[in-house]
């Protein structure tokens, strides 16, 4: 249980750090990368504290003693961090499904026609902003003759999903 306790405390310490940094100033650039630095930086610092040192031992607080426990802590903490990052990405970008439901709910008494939903959620909002995100993340670039082309980084990401979706025998998605 020490692993769960120490892992949870370390995670919430990192979360609070992230929360307060975001409250002071929301960083520019890739949030996922910055969050990874914050969460794993806190983990490294936390691992040094929660080891069996005299201060922790005398205070009676939970500590980690053996190498397998450290490994288990690392697996638990990494899973928790990845789960949070997955949730964070859902907060960052508005999901079209959730937007549709919200727009219809805002017009609950009169309802909405399909065309009215399409007028609000158009190509500019649903597609072009994601193209801009991909350019910012250096996954695609715009050539001189105004054509979007994929970068090596983008191709690696695309191939992971193309391969996995072909194993699933699933269509393109999106």
């Amino acid at each position: 249980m020490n692993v769960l306790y120490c892992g949870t405390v370390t995670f919430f310490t990192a979360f609070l750090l992230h929360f307060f940094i975001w409250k002071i100033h929301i960083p520019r650039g890739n949030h996922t990368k910055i969050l990874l630095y914050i969460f794993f930086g806190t983990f490294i610092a936390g691992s040094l504290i929660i080891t069996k040192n005299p201060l922790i031992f005398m205070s009676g607080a939970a500590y980690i003693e053996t190498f397998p426990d450290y490994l288990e802590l690392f697996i638990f903490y990494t899973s928790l961090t990845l789960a949070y990052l997955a949730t964070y990405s859902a907060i960052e970008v508005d999901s079209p499904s959730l937007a549709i439901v919200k727009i219809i709910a805002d017009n609950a008494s009169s309802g909405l026609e399909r065309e009215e939903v399409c007028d609000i959620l158009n190509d500019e909002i649903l597609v072009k902003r994601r193209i801009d995100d991909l350019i910012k993340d250096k996954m695609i670039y715009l050539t001189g003759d105004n054509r979007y082309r994929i970068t090596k980084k983008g191709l690696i990401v695309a191939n992971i999903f193309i391969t996995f979706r072909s194993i699933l025998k699933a269509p393109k998605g999106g």
Partner: protein
Amino acid sequence: MAYLLLLIPLLGLLVNAAAQIFLYRVRPDKGLLTSIFIAFAAGLFALVLCALILYGEANKKDFSAQLVSDVIIYALLSYCYFHFLNLGETARRIRILRELAEAPAGLTTGELLGRYNAREILERRISRLTKSGQIVLKNGRYYIKGRAVLLMAKILGFMKIAMLAEESEIGLKWKR
């Protein structure tokens, strides 16, 4: 043996992923979500079975505490796998990347929108939301029927305000 025990949640995830792929390939008509739920249960079953066998050999005293820890790690990893599947299924960025990966000469905005556009995105989602009973079509107009997705939208909306201090990138107002 202590190192082997650490692999139990990972083994659960492996069973989960294998079962999910198998189920979806065999019965795609049942939908992705059904395969995810059944595969999660299969992975959990494999995890408990494996824990019972290995802990027995290791003669561990704190079996229940270790099992709780393994189940939590397994659930977290499964949640990440669910997001990975969801990215392939619904993420617009991934779809745009796929379209560009298939066009080595690149695509203009018009060509890209010809292959993938807001109308297609909305058609898919409206169909999905209607099938799952979240919205309903009456006399050519859509109304809210279920509350689950709306609740999820509100929770994410409030989290967005709390974390990013912004309402919505598309101007949706959550404070109501």
